[in-house]
């Protein structure tokens, strides 16, 4: 039985690849999208528990994705993985819109990421920053 369904959105193939290689053997369902459009496509067809998204996607299609999730009234947690040091405004805005957490790149621990993913699904929509 699959534990959780994750969708990872990032244009860096090597990144999404490593996520897939980590989560899949551990019984997570993980789908990859390399841009916003693809992600939206996938979101329309399947239900996901967690969205792992790079902040880079925000602004272009990221907001779209957030909207879609909201309108669907689905319990999909959005976790942003970002290398951007400053995104104070953006962070605030997204948190207000319901993002669950922000994780900084480079990711220091995949295990830690896994924990957050699990927590996200357990806890409520508004969460603390990791």
């Amino acid at each position, binding site marked *: 039985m699959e534990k959780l369904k994750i969708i990872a959105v990032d244009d860096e193939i090597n990144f999404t690849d490593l996520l897939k290689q980590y989560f899949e053997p551990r019984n997570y369902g993980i789908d990859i999208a390399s841009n916003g459009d693809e992600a939206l496509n996938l979101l329309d067809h399947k239900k996901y528990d967690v969205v792992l998204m790079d902040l880079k996607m925000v602004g272009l299609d990221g907001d779209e994705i957030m909207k879609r999730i909201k309108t669907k009234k689905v319990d999909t947690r959005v976790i942003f993985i970002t290398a*951007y040091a*400053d995104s104070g405004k953006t962070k605030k805005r997204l948190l207000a819109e319901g993002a669950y957490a922000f994780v900084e790149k480079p990711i220091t621990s995949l295990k830690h990421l896994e924990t957050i993913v699990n927590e996200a699904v357990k806890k409520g929509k508004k969460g603390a920053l990791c």
Partner: protein
Amino acid sequence: MTVYSLPVLAGALFSFTAGCYIYLNNRKSQNNISFSLFCFALFLWLFGYTIAYSIMDEQIALRFCRIACTGAMFTAPAFYHFTISFLSKKNEIKYVALAYILTIMITPLSLTSNLFLSGVYKYYWGYYSKAGFFHPFYLSVFFIIFFRGFYLLFKERRKKEMKHIRKLQIKYVFIAYVVALLGAIDYLPKYGIEIYPFGFMFVILFILIVAYAIIRHKLLDIEVIIKKTLVFAGLFGVSYGVIVSFAYFGSIVFENVVRNRWIAMVPSVFVIVLILRPLEHFLRTITDEYLFQKKYDYRQLLKIFADDVLSVIELKKLISHTVEMLSQIMKLENAAILLYNEKSKKFHTAGMADLVVDSNYAIDGSEKLLVLLDKKHNYILREDSGRVKPLPVDIEKVMNKLQSELVLPLKHRENLIGIVSLGKKKSDEDFTEEDIDMLLTLSRTLSIAITNAQLFVRLAEAQAQDAQKEKMAVIGTLSAGINHEICNPLGIARGQCEMFLLNWADGVYKDRTSEELLEKACEIMHKVIHETDRATVITRKLSSFAKPAKGEIEDNVRIEDEIQQVISLVEHDLVLDNISITTKYQKKLPCISADRKQVQEIFFNIIRNAVQSITDKGKVTINVTSSGKNVFVAITDTGVGIGKEHLSQIFNPFFTTKDPGKGTGLGLFIVKQIIEKNNGSIDVQSEPGKGTTFKLVFKAVGKHEEKEEIGKGEGKKVESGRERVESGRERVGGS
């Protein structure tokens, strides 16, 4: 009343007034009494002659001459009396009495008999007494008394221990006596020498000096008066002498030819006119050198200050120079300057000469001395005899600490920025009004010089800060890009390794063969290499950008390449903000001759500005075209635009419409400098609300070359300092 009697009358009236005034000033003091007696005697003397000169009748004239001479006689004992009381020589009082008695006894004789005055001469100015038989004896007694007083004064002057005001008084009285001696000239006409007896002027001067010394105790302008009068008297005497000699000799020569002594006037006037100026200068120099030896030369002081000291920009040097000069030239015991420190709100010692004060010494801004200087006084003099009340204790304390005699304010625009503290003069003399006047002027100029020096320091600091801020601003802009381009690859490299290791540890690979595992490992290592290479590239780009431009102008600079470099640095900044950059390059663009780094800097600044002007979504378009001779770059943004009123200012240094802390205002200024240095020009058009377009023009170089490695460009080293400003357009106006 003839013209000759007028000056004498003036003198008479003056003596009378002086006598009254001095007596009334202090009826009890022997000084005052004796001196007023002297003045009244003088009055008699002078008044007697006033009448004598004006009268036609010989006998009446004689009578008045006798009255005058009697008056003159009393001047000796009165004079002696004054000296004794001034010097408090109690033991000689009996001699004073003796002198008076003697004179009184002679009076009836001088008034009536021929012994002293045997008659009158008729000089051109009127009747004048003729010396009688006894007269020379009288004269010798007169001089004996006079010189006795002189001697006593001289001895007194040599004494070392006394209050320095006293010293001054004695000094001036002494000088006055010398002057008075000159009044003895008036005895000459009594012996038949036809010289207008102007000696009484010296006596008048004598009165002035002494009176001032008694009443005021502060002999300020006396110096000047003495000097000027002496010079004047000297000049007058010489002129007079010249006229008389010419008249005398001329009359002998011309007596037969032209019976008019007035013709002699003409050559004498000539001579006088010629010698007057040099004579004046000569007399001035003599009085300066011999009478007032310890005086300093104002002019020297001012000249040194203007040339040397005040043009020094460095604050420390300026201050130390100033105190040294002041102390040296004015021959002071010490000098110091204290300046206000804004942080501590106190006045700290900035420079000292011959003064030892704790280097931490500071006067609080609320200290009375400073408040007084700030609000009321122009200066504070410790021993100011013009002051009614004594100095407040607080002020005295501070002045004691600084061993200060005179404190002057340094003011800038009505604010007290510092003080100048001057110690006593080594000669122990007071600061005269002339001194203080000059010092006040000097301190005003000094304030300006100090303010300048301080501003210079602040300016240098500000410039350093601005340069730093600009650097920070640039780094700030790049930080997003830095983060992304470095953190991402590193994160991936790490993640891949971690993933593999975790999978291995958690047994994900338990069913794989060693070969498969090796393959997997190699795959991951390739990825790691790929990612670290990425990181290296951006690091190189950044460090290359961060290096200061060396000023090498190269002939094969491709604008499109440089623009791309810049874009690759900034594009990450744009992602978050929903801003896109599009570029359009005309085919076969020629190269330009420019400094590569500086060209990058230009585009970096303009693109950054463009991006920052876009508040929501927007785009930046870069269009590069060429006419063969020039290369045109147009950078358009859909930002907030620039208002008409600002368009002409945007290239000014420090002009910015950003909030404080968000921009240094130097970006476009630098751009303009660089562009002009690289033979280009820049223009701007803008519509508020719609956007802005920057148009740059560069001079093209030869033909467009094949794309090749520009690794090590053939840089032509150009002398730094070459700045050819393109005479081209720089229309900066409204759209």
